[in-house]
């Protein structure tokens, strides 16, 4: 049966057949086989691809852009509250509102705890060039506030090292300048709010535009402390009565 012609072509034919077989096994096998070469892991990380796209796999944020804040290490109750505020339309940013719209409180809590538990180095983002006097004024507001205008120091609520306080107060160190100043703008234009009394809206209304620049620049250029964990619950006595603090269990 074997002819010269077929013997000559045997080798290329075999190669082609092998290739075809490989393609056949490879391609449709992908679809049909549940144990795909790249199976989808059953992890929270995989489930929350939607969050990770902007905030990073470990909640490190996108320091390059300035507007996607770090979530890693922030108190879980704070993070869950933010999602709830987006859901209720108190905080306004369309992509976030859409993303969290259908999430249950339990799922939001789980996501908040995931990001809260992440420990990744802080990235630094660019701070606009401002004079030393501006930084000095910013640091004054951060550490002492401005009692004559009833502006409390940032540190009085956000902790002496500005790393936040469990369970509801976020850290401020390492946040980008753009993000901080944008948030003050949001409180003033009522696109960021939370349960009343909304302390940060009050503080933002008392700050002047130049104060906001100063605080944002001072915070964004501050050296990071060695321990960036949030302070324990009850370690500060806030000078204002805040809904977010009243809404959680009284530490006393």
């Amino acid at each position: 049966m074997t002819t010269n012609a077929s013997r000559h072509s045997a080798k290329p034919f075999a190669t082609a057949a092998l290739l075809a077989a490989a393609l056949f096994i490879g391609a449709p096998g992908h679809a049909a086989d549940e144990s795909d070469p790249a199976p989808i892991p059953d992890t929270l990380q995989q489930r929350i691809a939607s969050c990770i796209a902007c905030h990073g796999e470990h909640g490190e944020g996108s320091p390059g852009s300035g507007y996607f804040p770090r979530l890693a290490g922030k108190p879980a109750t704070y993070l869950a509250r933010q999602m709830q505020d987006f859901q209720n339309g108190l905080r306004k940013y369309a992509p976030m509102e859409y993303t969290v719209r259908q999430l249950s409180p339990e799922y939001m809590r789980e996501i908040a705890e995931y990001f809260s538990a992440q420990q990744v180095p802080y990235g630094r983002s660019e701070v606009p060039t401002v004079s030393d006097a501006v930084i000095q004024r910013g640091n004054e507001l951060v550490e002492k506030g401005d009692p004559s205008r009833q502006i409390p120091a940032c540190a009085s609520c956000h902790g002496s090292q500005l790393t936040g306080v469990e369970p509801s107060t976020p850290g401020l160190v390492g946040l980008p300048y753009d993000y901080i100043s944008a948030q003050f703008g949001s409180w003033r234009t009522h696109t960021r709010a939370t349960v009343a009394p909304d302390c940060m809206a009050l503080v933002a209304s008392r700050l002047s535009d130049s104060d906001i620049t100063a605080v944002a620049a001072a915070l964004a250029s501050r050296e990071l402390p060695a321990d960036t964990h949030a302070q324990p619950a009850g370690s500060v006595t806030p000078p204002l009565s805040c809904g977010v603090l009243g809404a959680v269990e009284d530490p006393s």
Partner: protein
Amino acid sequence: MKHLRWWLLLVFVVVVLGVAWWLFGSGGREPVSPQASAVPAASLKDPALVEKGRYLVAAGDCAGCHTARGGADFAGGRTVATPFGNIPVPNITPDHETGLGDWSFEDFEQSMRHGVGRHGELLYPAFPYTSYTKASRDDLLAIFAYLQSLAPAQQPAVAGSLEFPYSVRNGLKAWRALYFRAGEFKPDPAQSAEWNRGAYLVQGLGHCNECHAARDSLGGTPGDVHLTGGQIPVQNWYAPDLSTQRHGGLEGWTAKDIVDLLKTGQSARGATFGPMAEVVVNSTQYMSDEDLHAIATYLESLPPRDAPAEPSRMFDADTLVDAGAKVYAEHCESCHRADGKGVAGIYPPLDGNSSVTEPTGINAARIVLLGGFAPVTAANPRPYSMPPFAQQLSDEQVAAVISYIRRSWGNHASAMRAEDVSKYRQTPID
């Protein structure tokens, strides 16, 4: 000759006055007080009736409009956006001052059945009485009993923004003459009890046709248009055709696919998102398996559709599709797979997915831009999600990848242009 002219003038004046009375005359209805109602107040407190009402209120997705984000349940306090302006949504809790506290069942039935308010005023059809009119009296009674059992919430209506002439309620008389036929659902004796139950739910409380049919320039749905799909005004999502037969939006869907989608938010054929995700979360996931099967039975009986028109060849779709293949390989393939089949139970297929191939491409564009989670339901409490690509991809890249998925595998829909994508970037979320 002179007499004739006078007569004509007289007839003209009478006609004008008649039309004016028809358009501007007040409804002039006296509300029926709860005390004067034929339904004794005590009978509304029957726990079984209230429980039945809770189920039907979920089936009718009343919360979808009557509960504001972050607001008290059923207390209104928001508006519904329409092309004619924003229409305030009323408080339907039994608050005496701002809700239905002083309403009788007669008042309630009239609003649901006839779209007429307590004082005879015509209601705007953003309230889907066009569908609710088909509900049975027993079901309306249960719904009323449930609403009256809620904790009263004081919440006045917010201001709407309808402009003239839409602000003239009596203009609705003309609209109603064109689009509204009041009347309870009439079962079709030629069909099974299950089919009739499905038809009752779909056409009545489910008010599916309010979104799943195209509205014309007056915001109405002509009577013969039934579940053939349509763009939802202002919200800019496309509610697909619901026929499972040839050329239908759900062509090839089994009853199980339909039930799965309504129960869990996703099925082997696709996942819900946007407004339908809210419907699943608020409404259909709570419906019994029997009712969901009935809905599937009814939808499966919808007739085949005409073949879609050939996509226009106004621009070079092939170049776009080629560019889209690269975007797909980089950003989409790891989840939706090279063959567009997705991953069962996790990521929906794109091949044959009605959200991908619907006529406008709006859904695909907005999903690529927004990403998001599948709805959280009892059956799927921790859904997987899709990253938003609005930040990462340009209009050109989004148009390319959408053109690719709409024209790959078994899909033969039109390509999309970058200009269209830029339009959908601006669509508000609410």
